[in-house]
Every structure is written in C-alpha cells, then in structure tokens.
C-alpha cells in the first residue's frame, strides 16, 4: 500500500521553512516525518503528515508550490542493522531507491522508513514476499 508525501518547492530564503511549518501548525496538521533535499538556490521539503490533502490545499492557498508524491513507508526494529536488513532485500531484488528518510516512533521500539522507488508496485510486492510490514494511511493517522 502506497502512502502520499507532500513535496514543497522552497527557495533558499530565510524563514521559508518556518512559514510552511507554522501554516501547517495553524491548520492543526501534524508532521510525522520530514526531510529537505537541496540544490544551490532552492530545495524541496518532503513531509509525511496526518492529513495530506488538507495540507496541500492550505499550502496552495497561501501560494506555495506543493504536490503529492507516492511513497512507501516501512516499519523496522529500531536496533543496529535494522535499515541494512531492509536495504539488503531491495538490493537482492534489484529495487532502486530514489531517496529515503527515516524517523523513530515515540512509544515503541520501531523505526519508520520512508522510501521513494522508481517502481513502487514492484517494491511493495517484494516487501510483502519478505514479510516486511508496510504502513498504511490509518497507521500514519494513529501514530
């Protein structure tokens, strides 16, 4: 099952990231995971939030360039070698990861990894075959 991530185009300019986060705060949207990819004078802010549709609408209304991207989120044990074991599965099955970022859950011993694949459907099949649990929309909301 795929999840959606919000991607926001941001100029490297003071206070821009703050504006996005405070806007989402006002809209009562909770950020679950976040990463920034940057180039010389601009970057892309990537976030997994509890209500992506509402978040994108709010951002667009305020003039931000935002879009939704499919991603896959996976739960692993928060212990040494946890990430390596997953990446090993991808490597063996020729699954290419475009980018990824991770975050740790507060009340459990699990970590959550967010992946962007060039072929998400194939990745999901491989994950299922290897009994690696994928996080759905409901899980994200209840985290």
């Amino acid at each position, binding site marked *: 099952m795929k999840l959606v991530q919000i*991607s926001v*185009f941001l100029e490297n300019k003071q206070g821009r990231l703050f504006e996005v986060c405070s806007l989402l705060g006002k809209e009562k949207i909770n950020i679950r995971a976040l990463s920034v990819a940057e*180039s010389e004078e601009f970057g892309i802010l990537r976030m997994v939030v509890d209500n992506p549709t509402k978040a994108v609408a709010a951002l667009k209304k305020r*003039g*931000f*360039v*935002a879009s939704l*991207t499919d991603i896959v989120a996976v739960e692993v044990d928060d212990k040494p070698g946890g990430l390596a074991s997953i990446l090993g599965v991808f490597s063996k099955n020729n699954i290419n990861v475009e980018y990824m970022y991770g975050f740790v859950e507060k009340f459990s011993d699990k970590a959550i990894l967010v992946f962007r694949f060039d072929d998400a459907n194939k990745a999901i099949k491989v994950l299922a075959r290897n009994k690696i649990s994928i996080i759905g929309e409901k899980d994200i909301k209840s985290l």
Partner: protein
Amino acid sequence: MKKAYWNEAQETSSRNTLKRLQLQRLRQVIDRALKTPFYKARLRRAGISGSRDIKTLDDLKKVPFTTKDDLRECYPDGLLAVDLKDVVRIHTSSGTTGTPTVIYHTREDIANWTELVARCIVATGASSKDVFQNMMSYGMFTGGLGLHYGAERVGMTVIPMGSGNTRRQIQLMHDFKTTVVHITPSYLLHIYSKLEECGFSVSDLCLQKAYLGAEPYSENTRKKIEELLNVDAYNSYGLSEMNGPGVAFECVYKRGMHVWEDAYIMEVIDPHTLQEVPAQEEGEIVFTTLTRRATPLLRYRTRDLGFIYKDECKCGRTHRRLSRITGRTDDMLIINGVNVYPSQIEEVIMRIPQVGTNYQICLEKDGALDKLVVKVEIYSKMFKGELGELDALRARIKEDLRASIIINPSVELHEPGSLPVFEGKAKRVVDSRQKL
C-alpha cells in the same frame, strides 16, 4: 469570421483615396506645425515654409525627423500649436528617464483619438454588449483614459478600475461578468496566478477578450495567456507622443496591428542610415500625426522596432499592419559584446510549459565579464515534487537560451509570486553593471 467596422468607409477606403487624404492632411499639418517655435525654425532650415512646399507624399522626406530629445527640449510649450484656451487636456510622460515630454490636446484632438480607439475595439469583434474592465492606469498615463473614452463611445459597459488592487479586480470581473479587459500582459498573468487564492477559477469568469499593451511581450506570452485564461488576446500599440493607445490594433485575424493611416503616416527606417526599409523588413517605426491640432508631430522617431506586413488582411481593412514590437532601439543589451534584446529571452522562456508567469533578467559584472542571470518563476501545476525535474528544467532553459542568444546564462528557479510584480509597465531588466 464576422466582419464589423466602426467606420467602414474610412477603414476600407481604397489605397488611392487614402493616399489623397494623407496628402491633403499632411499639407494642413505642416501649416499647423509652422505655428510652433520649434518647427518654425526646424522646417525653415529644411527649406519648407508652408504647405506649398509639400506637393506629393514623397515630399515628406524633406522634413527632418523629430526625436524624443527634441520633445524634451521643447518642454513645456515649444511644440504647442494652438492658443492655450483651446486646449482641453495635457498628458505628460513620467520623466523617469529625463525631462518629461508633454502632449496637448484640443477638444477635436480628443474626439479624433476616441474615434480611432472605437475602431480598434470594434475590429476585435467587441460591441456595446460587452462589459469592459479597464485595468490600465488612469491619470497622466494615456492607456487608461484613451481606452476608456473609446469604450464609452462604442457603448460598452465600462468599469474604470485602473491598475492594481488585484483582489478587487477579480471580484468585480466575477460580479459584473466582465467580458473584455485592457491590461498589461504581466499584470494579467499576475491576476491569473492570484485567481485560486481569491477563491475563483477561470471558469467562474466570463472573460472573452484581453487587450494587451503598454509593454513589449512575445508571441509565446500571448499564447500562454490565451491558453491559461481561455481568451482571445489582442495586441495594442500606442505611445503618448501619438496620443496613446489607438495608433494600431489587431483585428479578429490577430496577425499584425492595423495602423490608422488616415490619422498617421507610418514609415519604417534603418535607425543607422535613416533610409526607409521595404515592407517585411525590420526597422525603427516613425510616425507623422495627420489630424492633431494642439501638438502636431512630424516624422517622430518612436525608437520602437517592427516591420510592416506586405500582404493584405482578410478583414477587408486597407490600413496596413504593423508587426508586434520586436524591441526598442534603446533597450538593446550588450552582453560581452553580443547584442541581445530582452524580447529574445522572453520568447525562449515563455515557450517552456514549466515556466510560470513572471521572470527577470539581471546583468552583473563577474570580474571583467558580464554575467547574465535569468530568474524565472516555476509554474506550480507542473511541479511533481522531484529535484531531478527541476534540475532538468534549469538545464533546458540554459540550453535553449544559449542556442538562441549565444550567451551562457545562469538560470535561477523561484517560487511563484516571489519576483517583483508590476501593476503598470513591467520592468524586467535589472542592469547592475557599472556604466563606463
């Protein structure tokens, strides 16, 4: 296509009749010009002491050119040909680039100007049934009042908003079902980018036509506007020295702007040799006013570059067509020795769908060399969230520009709404190189 004229006899009169009328009016305007201190001295020196020295239209070539600097030197009343009591209006230029220039109008001048604007409006297929929102500045800028008078003359329902106040513009466009707008292309694109924020979409509006003028823009910008807003966009040409808007305007065929040749004699010259160039060949546009009473101007060099179309227009108007303005003799940039017009850069970037509605051309010094930085806003609907696509976009803009202007620019991508917005004429070029 439906053919409608405001003044059919004049707009479709034969070339011969038109030329006879031009000669008759040229002789009158020479006599009127001789009443001004400026032309009295200038024409005498050229051996012209009255209309008797003008026997054919070719004799116009004996008349010296008038330049913007001449107008500045004549400020405030060196070119006034009538008694001030007969003047009903004064328009001056802003004077941001030097001493202002002034044009006086009599009641008859205003009536003639209004007639020309009415012809332009009807040529685009608009009529008294249309609701016209005028988003050009009123006041000293001729764009606002010029179209306002013409639109009322045609009987349109006029909303005299002027420029600026985007939120209210959009609200009124919606509430009064505006069908025609008069606006600068950059401001219309800005309005488009704010629609969603104001809670509207293009389909909530009744817009059919946009009259675009007051700043140069490319054919690709026109296409972009027509697609984004689902309108027909018409090119308008005018300059305050020639009244303002209403000098030339596109008809429904949208291929070049008909110049009202019963009111103006148009010449296109090589700006260096000052010789006339043939049709279809680009040069500097020169106008002689034929009907103006208060401020007659002879062979005025506009500094705008364009060409005259050779072929006839399907609309039936016999008045020749002027091309889109391709640049100005004074806005040419010299970048590391290469001549570049800002319009060439616009042409390239507006063809790329991921580019948004605003851009800026910056020139800086990088050591001894000139550095060209092109800043563009990205089009939000094209953003898919990948860094790679943005890098590819940047590379494409760079490559297309290099191929077109032979200069390697650096390209910056910006968020929509982050580059300076202009509610009147856009100022797209920022040249921070030290002047020698």
